[in-house]
């Protein structure tokens, strides 16, 4: 039997945590590897279990879910991460994406959609709402204009096209039809976009840390 993807849930609200755990453990294609109710517990389990997917809330009582996502990069784990949010509003979601998350879950989604989102992520696709798509597009364009660059320096022309159509409120299927690709390709594009944003944001963080003298590079 094929090994099932392992999931770690970090959520301080116990009914939500229980609901998520229930949905995952009852799903035939997913395996609940563990759960935590706070940041340190979550970090410990993350390093110990090395799950396929981390589901984390952002506002934890003893820390920020974003730092868990950072930890994945720091320990070079091969874990995908998703943030759990109530509204899916662009401010929180974008922060998570820049930290390295490749997806997000709405807390009140029904069980089927939650499982489906996780599986879609594992299949290589990321979800994106029109508002977030617009936000990303606007930010990329604005930065390019500011640096006198073409927007293509960060994202490919195709990725920009996908973002623009999604921002107009088209569904994945409609975007796929318009651009003559499969809807799976659309979600893959979105995932790539997320990764690029995270990489760029890390680069910026390193650059900023160097500037402020918080980080030192030892040269041979």
């Amino acid at each position, binding site marked *: 039997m094929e090994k099932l993807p392992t999931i770690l849930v970090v959520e301080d609200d116990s009914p939500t945590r229980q609901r998520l755990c229930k949905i995952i453990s009852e799903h035939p294609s997913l395996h609940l590897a563990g759960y935590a109710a706070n940041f340190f517990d979550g970090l410990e389990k993350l390093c110990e279990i090395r799950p396929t997917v981390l589901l984390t809330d952002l506002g934890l009582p003893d820390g920020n879910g974003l730092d868990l996502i950072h930890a994945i990069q720091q320990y070079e784990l091969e874990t995908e991460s998703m943030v759990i949010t109530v509204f899916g509003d662009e401010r929180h979601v974008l922060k998570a994406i820049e930290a390295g998350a490749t997806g997000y879950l709405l807390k009140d989604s029904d069980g089927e959609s939650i499982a489906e989102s996780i599986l879609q992520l594992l299949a290589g696709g990321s979800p994106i709402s029109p508002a977030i798509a*617009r936000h990303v597009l606007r930010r990329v364009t604005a930065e390019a204009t500011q640096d006198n660059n073409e927007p293509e320096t960060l994202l490919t022309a195709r990725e920009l096209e996908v973002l623009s159509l999604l921002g107009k*409120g088209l569904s994945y299927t409609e975007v796929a039809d318009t651009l003559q690709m499969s809807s799976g390709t659309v979600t893959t594009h979105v995932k790539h976009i997320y990764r690029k944003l995270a990489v760029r944001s890390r680069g910026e963080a390193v650059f900023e840390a160097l500037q402020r003298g918080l980080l030192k590079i030892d040269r041979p």
Partner: protein
Amino acid sequence: MSGSRVSLSVLPRLGAWFMLAILLLSWAVLLYLHHRLPGSGAIEFDKGKRYISVQTRLPTGQEQGWEAVSLTDDWWESAPQEKQIWYRFELDLVVPSDRLWAIYLPRAAVNASVWLNGELLGGGGRMQEPISINWTRPLYLMIPNGLLKPGSNELTIQLVSDLAGNGLLRAFYLGSDELLSTYYRWRYFIDVTAVEMITIFMVVMSLFMGALWWLRRDSLYGWFSVMVMLWALHHLPLLITTVPLPSGLWWWFWYMTIGWAIICTVYFTHTVLNLNIRWIQRGVFIAGVTGSIILAVAAAIDGYWLRVLGNHVWDTMVLLIGTYSIYKIFTGWHYEQDMDIRWLLMSGLLTFSFGVHDWLVLNSWIARDDGLYIQYSPPLILLVFGWILLMRFVGALTFAEALNRDLEARVQQQVEAVKLQHQQIRELEQQQLLASERERMMRDMHDGLGGHLVSTISLIEGARPTMDDINQALHEALDDLRLVVNSLDPDQGDLSIALSDMRYRLEPRLKAAGIQVKWNSAELPELKQIGPGRVLQILRIIQEGITNIIKHSQCEVMSLEAMVKVSNPHNQLVITIEDNGHGITDSDHNGKGIQNMHKRADRMGATITIKSKPGLTRITLGCPIP
């Protein structure tokens, strides 16, 4: 501080002494220059013979009719009705000098010609009508070499007058040119050049003051201008030798100009002192006009009477008028202690003293060969008045600058005040904006989330609630909260984007219900244009409609179409949602969901049309866009 006060109070006192010094100095200079005559170096002629005759030929060899005379010979006294007299003087020279000799006549009115030993030496111009007027000019004649002989010489002078009895011959001198020319040049300067300069100065000042009057309409400058101009005209008979008018008219003009100039001082003084004594002003004017007419009549009849009336009556009246002006200025200064007035008083007193002198001369109290002085007083008056003007100008400038500074300060103050006010208004506006926004959010929460939660509670408290019902109620509450959050997002561009966000959110549920979605939304107005409150209501209505479709319709396809219909007076936003479900029953129509949609539409002036039959249900929202 005290130092500056002392210096300020000393200054006018110094000024007063300075003025007094100028007054006395003017007198001294004038007296000195007028009485500066050649001494022992020259031969003075003060005794001779005269012969009253109208003959124009040199009376030679004729001894009858000659009478002894001593100079000065003033015709007013000795020949009041004559127009021409011959004079003869004998001179015994021991050894004639080989130097250049000359004859210097300090005063020979009105015109003279001089012969030496029967040869004409020269004269002051025309001896026949119209006679050249040289009454205030010295006469200087050089003697050709050889004309003056050792032994007896005879000097003959022909003296003519335009008016009867106006002639005057002062003692004269014979001597070396070297000696006499200096005296002559000095006298000429005093009698002619200085008066010319003064007159030009007066004309310029008068024009300047006239311009000031024209520009400022201050009658002070006007009176001063007229006065100075009249006075300048009064100098013309002193300067012009070839008279352009009949001599009677000419001398009448001479009396008039000074008379009216002095009359002007009354008006000028009244203006300076802010007096308005009507009867004086009128009286002076009437006296002036009456005197002018009488004098004109006298001039027309007889030169003698013009002179007598002019000197004794007219000039006396003028002197009295001048005295009045001086008196007024004096009392004005006494009461007001004004510096300007004191200076005016000083210059007025000098003029007045000169005027008294001239009046005494013209009325034979002082010998006529002393000449007239009044023409020398204008410079002081003009200087004083110019100084006053300068001070006024400087004062006005200083005042204007102070005023400007004050104004600037006040403007600055106002600017600060306005700034503060603006800031307060801005703060108030912000507070108001915040308050209204808060109010809107409260209302939104109350309408949406609050209502949903209350209905959920009633559901739970009611008979046998199912978990599904509660789940659905809570989902609705959350959906509405999402709408409120979305409607607050400032980033959203137009309504179609807000609608598509909603679609994205509802998509999983539509999918779960097995409903295929057709979404057709054209370019819709910007959210700002519709206003956040109405956007929320529109989204709520549409969300309610779609939720109803998911819950009740059991349809396979639903579609949404949004567009703007152009119409008058307002464009219409039209959103239609259709489904192919089993339709809305009458009981559904009265259901809370549809009632809510109507209520919300009513509140923002929109309309909801519902058409339903099995297989096709259409809900249309029509909303006017401002």
